[in-house]
């Protein structure tokens, strides 16, 4: 009985998770090393990877800062009533329930070229939709809950007594944060950052809608894969996809390492 269940689990994992990953690795090498190298070092691929890199850096920094602060407020702040806190707390999860395409659509509807706000901004020379700012906003929206959801449970668990003690002993809020709160939430912030980076690297639907997928301008790595597939350029699509998949697997391994380190 036991053998049967373990065997079945192995089969499910091999078929569902193993086979696709092996297939994509093999696909990228179909034309040998040069095929893979060509796929990745094409100018459009380099530009797309650079765009993805820029978005990852901006989104991770902004969402980590705001995520940690919002988590602190939602757990600790007395100036928010408990009722309001509960409402805000459930609003935080909403981006998880929103399809990425819909997330992109929201931004197009709010600040797109046809809207009042959008035309005002483009009159001032700021393009949001079909440009980098829109893509960043869309990704910020999609990755918003990740850091907060990692940090909040830890804050609730450690309680506020140590912080209060630091405050009583005359520490400034800033010192209290760095010397008392930060050491205990450090690892959960790291998890949140890893999840945010992984999600941002892979974000596709929202970015596709907002960016317009313009070659050499707003194309990211994932939308390049999509376009390559549409153009039946499968080897090239495979190469870029393999780079993205390798990044995700590396992040996953890092996460496992971080978890085992915290436990020990």
């Amino acid at each position, binding site marked *: 009985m036991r053998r049967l269940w373990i065997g079945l689990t192995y089969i499910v994992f091999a078929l569902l998770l193993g086979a696709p990953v092996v297939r994509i690795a093999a696909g990228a090498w179909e034309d040998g090393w040069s095929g893979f190298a060509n796929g990745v070092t094409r100018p459009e691929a380099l530009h797309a990877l650079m765009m993805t890199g820029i978005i990852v850096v901006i989104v991770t920094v902004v969402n980590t800062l705001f995520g940690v602060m919002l988590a602190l407020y939602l757990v600790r702040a007395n100036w928010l009533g408990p009722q309001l806190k509960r409402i805000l707390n459930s609003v935080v999860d909403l981006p998880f329930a929103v399809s990425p395409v*819909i997330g992109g659509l929201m931004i197009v509807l709010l600040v797109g070229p046809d809207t009042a706000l959008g035309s005002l901004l483009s009159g001032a020379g700021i393009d949001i939709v079909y440009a980098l700012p829109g893509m960043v906003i869309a990704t910020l929206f999609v990755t918003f809950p990740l850091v907060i959801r990692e940090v909040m449970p830890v804050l609730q668990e450690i309680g506020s007594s140590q912080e209060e003690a630091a405050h009583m002993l005359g520490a400034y809020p800033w010192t209290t944060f760095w010397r008392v709160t930060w050491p205990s939430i450090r690892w959960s912030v790291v998890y949140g950052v890893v999840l945010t980076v992984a999600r941002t690297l892979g974000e596709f639907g929202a970015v596709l809608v907002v960016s317009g997928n313009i070659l050499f301008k707003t194309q990211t790595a994932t939308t390049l894969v999509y376009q390559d597939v549409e153009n039946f350029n499968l080897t090239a699509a495979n190469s870029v996809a393999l780079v993205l998949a390798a990044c995700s697997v590396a992040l996953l391994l890092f996460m496992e390492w971080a978890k085992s380190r915290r436990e020990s």
Partner: protein
Amino acid sequence: MTNMLQSRWWSWGFRSTVMLYFVILIVLPILGIYGQSLSDGWPKFVSNLTEPLAWKAVMLTVKLALIATVINVLIGTMAGWVLIRYRFPGRQLLNSLVDLPFALPTAVVGLMIMLLLGPRSEVGQWADSLGFAILFHEPAIVIAMIFVTFPFVIRAVQPLLEEMDASEEEAAYTMGASKAKTFFRVILPAMMPGILSGAMLAFSRALAEFGAVVLVAGNIPGRTLVASVYIFGQIESDNPAGAAAVSVLLLTLSFVILWLVSYVQARRTGR
């Protein structure tokens, strides 16, 4: 005194910045899409929804997401059980692999499934010789949905199994219950809240999935066009009102599911 005043100014500044960011980034867009879909009045909203292709896309999505969820409940419960209860070589590796679908970009997932099931691959040829097609048909969409929602049920079931009290199970054995009976009468009810909330999260994710599905679905209107791809098509063909109407329907469905999940969890922990 000046020091205190300064720090108060600072904290006010921080608070309003963070709250403003929250409201502008999350609340405003969601209200905006509800507003936009109803901006041309209620009848227009209804006619956008009852458009045959739109309605078919929504129904197809719900149907396929349900199938994917049921399959995921079965294999997820099994995998969660095996990974917690049994010790075997490679267990740690499999346990870390569970999160892979969350880490992989969805467009990459779509490409993987497309290559694996395509007409040139072994699976594709085998299915072809049996007389049915996988890629660009409903089975491929279901497989894509199963892949992206794979971790939900497992991750929801595992903590419940871990904290389960072994004595109940032992009591059932001692009193002469068979293994199957113990499982269905003692263990399964204890796992049920996890299975339920995992299934609901998986269902809502499957409803919303775009990247993995758009590459493998073929997107034939009325037959393999799912709701998220329909929305994308409406945006591309410059019909934001039609896109917004279907979006609002999907969003409302997802919000209800999210609320149900938190209700189930609150009931479990709140007692």
